[in-house]
């Protein structure tokens, strides 16, 4: 009989996954607390700031973790695995959106939709500059956007991004470079030196 509770907050993600596969509810709670909010924000960025869809995606992702924990390879990093799953979910959604809209790239169309819905950034910070950044980030090509988000917002390393996106590190660096240059160029109008 366990007298004292195991300190799940000291467990690594991989250990928590092993515990989840054995039916440890508190391990699942701990993992959810670690990743749910970050994944929701990631989905929000990748899915045109659609809150409902992002919530559904978070739910579906964790449901997969509960129902199919064996899909996770314990020798791999959980973080890269969960982001690769999330990224694949987003890609699938892009494909579905393309089919639904009959468009080759439905990204711009979706962004227009997000303009009419509640803009989270507007709620938090009423800043044109910030808005412009978010807008330009959303307008960025998927592959560049995901690389930039994973690197600079989620904090993954180049190697981890390469694992998540299943590309080599050189390609990751190239995409990051392009995304950074694109965003810097798009924010030119807010440059104080430019406006002198």
């Amino acid at each position, binding site marked *: *009989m*366990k*007298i004292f*509770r195991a300190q799940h907050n000291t467990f690594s993600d991989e250990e928590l996954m092993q515990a989840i596969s054995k*039916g440890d*509810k*508190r391990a*699942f709670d701990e993992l*959810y607390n670690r990743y*749910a*909010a970050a994944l*929701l*924000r990631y989905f*929000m960025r990748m899915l045109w700031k659609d*809150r409902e869809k992002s*919530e559904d995606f*978070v*739910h579906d992702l*964790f*449901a997969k973790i*509960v*129902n199919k924990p064996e899909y996770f390879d314990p020798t791999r990093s959980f973080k890269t695995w969960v982001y690769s799953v999330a990224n694949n979910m987003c890609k699938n959604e892009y494909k579905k959106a393309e089919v639904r809209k009959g468009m080759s790239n439905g990204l711009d169309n979706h962004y227009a939709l997000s303009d009419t819905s509640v803009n*989270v*950034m507007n709620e*938090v*910070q009423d*800043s044109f*500059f*910030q808005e412009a*950044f*978010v807008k330009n980030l959303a307008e960025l090509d998927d592959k560049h956007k995901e690389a930039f988000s994973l*690197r*600079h*917002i989620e904090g993954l390393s180049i190697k981890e991004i390469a694992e998540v996106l299943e590309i080599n590190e050189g390609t990751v660096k190239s995409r*990051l*470079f392009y995304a*950074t*240059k694109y*965003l*810097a*160029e798009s*924010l*030119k109008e*807010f*440059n*104080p*030196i*430019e406006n002198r």
Partner: protein
Amino acid sequence: MEKELVNTVLEKEFNELSSNERIALNDYCSSEEEFEQLKMVFLSVEALKKSETIVPRTETKSSLDDIFAQKHGHKPRAIWYNSALVVLYPKEKAFVKRPLVQIAAIGLLFLLAYPLINSTKIQDLTETQLAEVKVEKQNAKPSRVKTSNPVSTDSNVETVIEPIIYTRSEHADPIYEEVMVATAEMSVEEYIPEPEVVFAAEPAMAERPDGIYTGSSTITFSQPASAQPQVFDLLTSTF
């Protein structure tokens, strides 16, 4: 871009960059203008990270909990002390209404009252012990049984117990007290009976109002004048 370079862009101005840093950043920015644009990108990223405070809804979590319960086919394992605490320390009840608090309060009261209860018991015990000791003493007193024939060998002859009757005169031994008088030649022994004889006519005062002194143990009193003819004559003499 490496994290160190991002920090460099965020923390430094273009003219503060070292040659090595400029070389490292050369691909991204070659002029101050490009450097400032790059800085704005990273400042925006930092602001975005800080502003993103959204968290998943509770419905999402509760739905996942249901899925987890269905998958593993059991409710979360109850730990014995948790269930005991639910009964003894229900958080939904007011603090004073929680059984554990009430039990603790009773325990504390008992602890505080114990010395008082114990002292009463000791008092009772001492009283009973005293009574027992008295009884024992009474029993332990020699009965002073005298047999008519203590060395009688005849078993048929019953010994007659004759209780000794003490008379007052026998029991109260006279007490002699030496009284010092003014003259050195005389010494008078006074007889003081014990116990003290109290006459009905005697007032409860040592010093009588008629001027006759009565000592604490020696009681003297004046005789009526009729009993003393000399005094009577003196009183009734006519001039």
